[in-house]
C-alpha cells in the first residue's frame, strides 16, 4: 500500500475528519480518491448480445480506486449506481474478467433484466466516465488455490459469467489439467462471449467445450447426457451455475435432492451471487465435488397468516407470506437492503420473537433475538422484527 494510502487510513486523519470520515472529503475533490471505500469509473461498455427479441447483454470494464482489494474468479461485487431521479440503488453482479489484483481493472457482464432497474441502466444507459460505488469482492463460488486436474463447468444462460471468469484465469495461468465446459443457451445468437468461446475452442487450449442450444436439438443435461459428455462426471470437481431450472435438473444427476442445497461436506452459508440478469440467486455448496450457484431468485413462498410486527415503527401488518423485506416495504417502511438474495447481510435485523423460514434452505428458526436476513426470511405465523 502506498504511503498516501497508509496516511489517509491513519488514526490521526480519522480524528481530523471526524465525524464524517476522510472519504466524505476525498470524494468531493476527486471521486477516484478513496481511503477505504471502493469506487470505480466505467472505462468501456461493450455489447455482447443485441437482439431485438431479447434483453441486451453488456460487458462493462471498470477502473477501480486503489482501495479495490482484487477478486478471485467466480466472486461477485455489490454495485451501487446513481440512477436518474437522484436515487442510488445497489445490486450484486458477478465479475466476468479473470482474477484481479488490488487496484486492477475488471469487468462485469450483465443482462438487462426487464424488471431490473440497475442492470437495465448499466446495459442501456451507462456511459464511459461514470462513477459507480462498490463493495469489495465476495463469495465462495471460486476455484480453490490448488486447481484440480479436471475441472467441469456446467452453466446456463447468464450463469456463464462466474465460470467464464474462472476459465479466463485458468487460461492465463496456463492450467495444465483438463477443463470441460458445458453451457446451455437459447440459441447461438443468445450466446454470451460467443467469439471468445469460438477462439478458445479452436486455439488448442485443450478446453473441451460443449455449447448446447435447444433450438438446434441440443439435449438437457440429464445424468445420461452428462455421462456421455463427461464419463465419470460425479467424481469430477464441478462448478454448476445457472437458472433454477438448469440447477434443479442437474442436481439429481449428482445424487443431490433439490431444495436441500445446504448439503454435506464443504457447505458455505453465503457463497454466491447473481450476475447477469436477474441479479438474484443464492448459493451453497453441495457435496464435496459439486459447487452450486443459483442465478434465479428463490421465490419467497412462505405461508400467509398471523401478524408481522415492526417494533421500531410501531406498526404491524397481516403476514402475506412474502419476505419480511417485501412486507416491510409494502407497509411503507424503508429497511436497508443490498443484494435482496441473502448474500450481503445488509438487511440483517434482529427478530425478537416468532418463527421465520429461510427461503434458501427451507429451515425454520424460532430463537428469540436472533439476527435474520429479512430478504430471504418469511414469517411463519406471528413474528416481531426490529424495524
Amino acid at each position, binding site marked *: 500500500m502506498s504511503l498516501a494510502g497508509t496516511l489517509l487510513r491513519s488514526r490521526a486523519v480519522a480524528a481530523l475528519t471526524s*465525524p464524517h470520515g476522510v472519504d466524505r472529503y476525498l470524494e468531493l475533490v476527486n471521486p477516484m480518491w478513496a481511503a477505504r471505500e471502493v469506487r470505480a469509473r466505467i472505462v468501456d461498455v461493450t455489447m455482447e448480445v443485441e437482439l431485438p427479441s431479447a434483453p441486451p447483454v453488456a460487458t462493462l470494464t471498470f477502473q477501480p480506486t486503489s482501495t479495490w482489494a482484487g477478486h478471485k474468479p467466480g466472486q461477485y461485487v455489490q454495485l451501487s449506481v446513481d440512477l436518474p*431521479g437522484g*436515487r442510488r440503488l445497489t445490486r450484486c453482479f458477478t465479475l466476468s474478467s479473470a482474477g484481479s489484483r488490488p487496484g486492477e481493472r475488471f469487468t462485469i457482464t450483465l443482462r438487462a433484466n426487464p424488471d431490473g432497474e440497475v442492470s437495465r441502466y448499466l446495459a442501456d444507459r451507462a456511459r464511459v466516465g461514470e462513477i459507480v460505488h462498490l463493495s469489495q469482492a465476495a463469495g465462495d463460488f471460486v476455484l480453490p488455490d490448488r486447481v484440480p486436474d479436471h475441472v467441469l463447468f456446467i452453466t446456463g444462460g447468464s450463469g456463464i459469467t462466474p465460470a467464464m471468469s474462472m476459465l479466463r484465469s485458468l487460461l492465463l495461468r496456463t492450467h495444465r489439467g483438463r477443463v470441460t465446459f458445458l453451457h446451455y443457451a437459447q440459441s447461438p445468437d443468445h450466446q454470451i462471449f460467443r467469439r471468445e468461446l469460438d477462439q478458445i475452442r479452436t486455439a488448442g487450449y485443450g478446453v473441451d467445450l460443449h455449447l448446447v442450444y435447444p433450438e438446434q436439438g441440443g439435449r438437457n443435461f440429464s445424468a445420461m447426457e452428462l455421462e456421455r459428455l463427461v464419463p465419470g462426471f460425479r467424481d469430477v470437481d464441478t462448478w454448476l451455475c445457472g437458472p433454477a431450472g438448469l440447477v434443479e435438473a442437474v442436481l439429481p444427476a449428482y445424487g443431490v435432492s433439490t431444495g436441500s442445497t445446504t448439503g454435506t461436506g464443504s457447505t458455505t452459508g453465503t457463497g454466491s451471487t447473481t450476475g447477469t440478469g436477474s441479479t438474484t440467486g443464492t448459493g451453497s455448496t453441495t457435496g464435496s465435488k459439486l459447487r452450486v450457484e443459483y442465478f434465479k431468485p428463490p421465490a419467497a413462498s412462505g405461508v400467509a397468516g398471523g401478524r408481522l410486527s415492526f417494533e421500531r415503527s410501531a406498526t404491524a401488518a397481516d403476514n402475506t407470506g412474502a419476505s419480511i423485506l417485501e412486507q416491510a416495504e409494502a407497509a411503507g417502511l*424503508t429497511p436497508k437492503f443490498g443484494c435482496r438474495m441473502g448474500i450481503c447481510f445488509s438487511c440483517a435485523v434482529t427478530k425478537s420473537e416468532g418463527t421465520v423460514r429461510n427461503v434458501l434452505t427451507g429451515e425454520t428458526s424460532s430463537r428469540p433475538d436472533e439476527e435474520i436476513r429479512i430478504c430471504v426470511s418469511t414469517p411463519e405465523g406471528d413474528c416481531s422484527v426490529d424495524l
Partner: protein
Amino acid sequence: MTHTITLTPDQLEAFGAEMDAIRQRIVADLGEEDAAYIRKVVKCQRGFEAAGRALFYLPVLGWAPAVACLSISKILDNMEIGHNVMHGQYDWMGDPGLNSRMFDWDTMAPAENWKHGHNYMHHTFTNIVGKDRDVGYGILRMDEDQEWRPYYLGNPLYAFLLMMLFEWGVAVHDLEFDELVAGRRTWAENREIGARIWKKVKKQTFKDYVLFPALTGPLFPLTFAGNVVANLVRNVWTFNIIFCGHFPAGVATFSVEQCEEESRGQWYYRQLLGSANITGSKLFHVMSGNLSHQIEHHLFPDIPARRYPEVAQEVRAICEKYDLQYNTGPLRKQLGSVFAKIVRLSLPTRRPKDTSVPVPETGAVVAA
C-alpha cells in the same frame, strides 16, 4: 397555556387529508434537483470547513476569516445538513453519506441519542406539556402550565447559559437529568446514552481543541481560541433559531389528556399551532436549515427542507380556509417575544381570580 381545539373532528379529518395530499405530492416529486441541492450544500460546507482550518495558518490576518468560515461550516453542518439528513429527509437517495442511519454531525451530541430525543420524543409529542421534553428542555419554564418554583427565578440566566453552551446542552439533554432527579429515571437507563456522549465528546474536543490547534504549531493559542469562538457562534445562532420555533407568543401548547387517541388530523393541527416561522431572505433560510419554516418542518419532518418554502404557501392558504393561526414574523419580533416570555415566566403566573371564565374560542391562543 393549554389550547382549546377549534375544529370539529370532521373538520380535523378534512384538514389532515389536505396535509396528507401536500405530503404525497412532494414525496412523489422528489428527484434529481433535491439530490443536487443537498450535495451542493455539503460541498459548500466542506469547502468552508477546509478554508477555515487552513486560514488559521495565516497569522493575525487570517484569524477572523478563519473563524467566520468555520462558523459557517458548523452552522451548515448542523442545520441544513445534519438536522435534516438525520430526519431521514434524504434517505430516499440511497446514499450512505446522506443517510439518517449513518450520518453524524459536527457537534457534541451523538446522532443516535439525538435522533431518539428529537425525531421521536419531540416530533411525536410536540408541545404536549409534560411529554415533550423540548418544552423548556427540563431546565427552563417556557409555558404557564409548568408549575412555578423558586428555581425558575433563574430562567433568564439558565437560558443565557444554555445559549452559550448549546451543543453541550443538546448532548446531555438525552440523559434527562431532571427525570433522574425526580426519580422517574434510573442511572442504568443512562449507561448506554452516556457512553455514546462520552465517546463523541472526546472526539470533538480532541479535534477542535487539541489536534487542529497543535497542527498550527506556535499559533496554537490563536487556533484554539478561534475554534472556541466558531463553536460559540454556532451555539448562539442555533439556539436563537430553535427558540423561535416553538416559544414565541401565540404558539399553542396542549395537555396530555387532549392528545389521547389523537387523530392524524389533530396531530397535524397540533404541529401547525405548536410551531412558529421566521421570515427572511433565501440565505437566511439556508443558514437556519430551513427551520425558519418550523411549521412546515413539523407538519412534514421527513420532506427535504428545501421544499418548505414552496409548501408554506399552500399551508397558509389552508390555514386561512380553516381560520387557523399561522405564526410568523421577522427574527427580531419572534426573538423579542421569546425573551419576553423567558423573563415573564421566571416569575409566578398570576391566575385570573374567576377561573370559570371560558377560554376564548379563537384559533390563536391568547398569550397570558
